């Protein structure tokens, strides 16, 4: 299909896969890029210019840990100088006050600080290192300087009963936004799914609590909540629809329609070192593959919701059914919904509730 009327609105710039954290639900692919394969400052700067020209409004600088790039200040300056809104998605780990001041001075608009929980030992277990205390320090620096910040808590079976503590931490921090994002099951998270997926009871309690909190804090703190889609009736509009709103640039320059797209066999990605961003957006095979409705099977093809959820998530379809073009199996109308129900039955069974931790698979830090 043509891209008429479609503009990429945000550029997700995965600057590096290097990261001092080892989170058990990391959204990076299992084959991590090494430092030697990362794009240079110059290429990234050109990508930001091309992005702004193509209509992109916001750059999300992420990783890995973007602070692992020694040239991060130059990248922030380049992105802001191109006219983009600059958002840094970070663990806050290799940050000090001087570097924070420089980043803000060069035009950083907003920072998303990730937390693994509100309780130090439990949070450190999830990221496989002692990170929590530094995150609290960073939060203090952000408050002192009145830097716009979103706190991001990734929610799962082990911490979902503690959302109250997380909200209290956020309320005391002066943050304007809080995200409670349930783990989505790709890559590292999929490998740890049995230890991460919450029970229905846990989820219901959490939803109820956050609904009341949203009401109480309206106009003060914006609370975003992402449910684990295994429990949803209809799939999420993954990435706002394939190739409709977002572009992700991997550390080596490959342009991907989403974080997990590499799991789909046979998908060919174009690289920003060889083609312009606009060319890639308009004609890259990977972006064209599931754009629009031509690829859709039934029941999506004739479904009233197809322009709301775009058939759900292609990577999830692949991971759970073996076919990237299948209806997202989390959909209650999907022919293969029984696969998701079986997973939920196991998690909600009496045995699962009392089970001990199965042991984590941590993501490594590439050199």
């Amino acid at each position, binding site marked *: 299909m043509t891209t008429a009327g479609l503009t990429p*609105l945000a550029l997700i710039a995965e600057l590096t896969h290097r990261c001092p954290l080892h989170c058990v639900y990391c959204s990076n692919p299992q084959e991590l890029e090494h430092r030697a394969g990362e794009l240079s400052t110059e290429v990234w700067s050109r990508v930001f210019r091309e992005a702004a020209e193509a209509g992109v*409004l*916001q750059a999300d600088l992420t990783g890995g840990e973007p602070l692992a790039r020694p040239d991060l200040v130059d990248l922030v300056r380049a992105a802001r100088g191109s*006219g983009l*809104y600059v*958002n840094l998605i970070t663990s806050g780990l290799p940050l000090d006050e001087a570097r924070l001041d420089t980043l803000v001075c060069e035009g950083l*608009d*907003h920072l*998303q600080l990730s937390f693994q929980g509100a309780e130090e030992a439990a949070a450190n277990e999830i990221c496989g290192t002692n990170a929590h205390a530094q995150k609290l320090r960073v939060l203090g620096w952000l408050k002192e300087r*009145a*830097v*716009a*910040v*979103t706190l991001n808590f990734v929610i799962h079976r082990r911490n979902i009963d503690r959302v109250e503590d997380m909200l209290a931490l956020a309320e005391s921090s002066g943050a*304007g*936004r809080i995200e409670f994002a349930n783990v989505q099951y790709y890559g590292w998270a999929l490998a740890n799914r049995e230890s991460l997926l919450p029970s229905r009871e846990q989820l219901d309690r959490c939803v109820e609590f956050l609904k009341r909190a949203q009401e109480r804090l*309206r*106009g*003060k*703190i*914006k609370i*975003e909540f992402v449910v684990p889609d295994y429990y949803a009736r209809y799939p999420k509009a993954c990435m706002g629809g394939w190739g409709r709103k977002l572009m992700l640039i991997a550390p080596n320059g490959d342009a991907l329609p989403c974080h997990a797209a590499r799991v789909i066999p046979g998908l060919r990605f174009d690289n920003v070192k060889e083609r312009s961003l606009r060319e890639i957006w308009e004609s890259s095979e990977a972006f064209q593959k599931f754009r629009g409705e031509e690829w859709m099977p039934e029941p999506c093809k004739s479904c009233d919701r197809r322009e709301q959820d775009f058939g759900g998530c292609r990577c999830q379809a692949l991971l759970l059914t073996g076919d990237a073009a299948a209806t997202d199996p989390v959909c209650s109308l999907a022919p293969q919904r029984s696969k998701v129900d079986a997973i939920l039955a196991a998690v909600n069974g009496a045995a699962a509730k009392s089970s001990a931790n199965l042991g984590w698979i941590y993501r490594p830090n590439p050199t």
Partner: protein
Amino acid sequence: MTPEPNSYPRLALGCRLNEKTQQPRVLHMPERALRLNGPSLEIIERCDGSHTVQNIVSELQQIYSKAEPQKVEQDILGYLTLLHDQRALDFVSGAAADKSREAK
């Protein structure tokens, strides 16, 4: 909530207009952006902490003098409330604004 007529709306932390030279004009907010047309841009350009809600209403009533003044006011108050609930606006109270001016 309805905004106080004497309060000063100001873009919240992390929210800003893009540059005048950029098209289309948008209000950047963390994680999203709002495309602005004529009246919404006129309103947001005045949310700079130096116009009261009342100032904004009267200035827009002048610009859109063909529209029903009461309708203009309602639309503005509705829009400001929406932006406030989205955490894009703070309302600085008249007293607080006077104080900060004195301090300068």
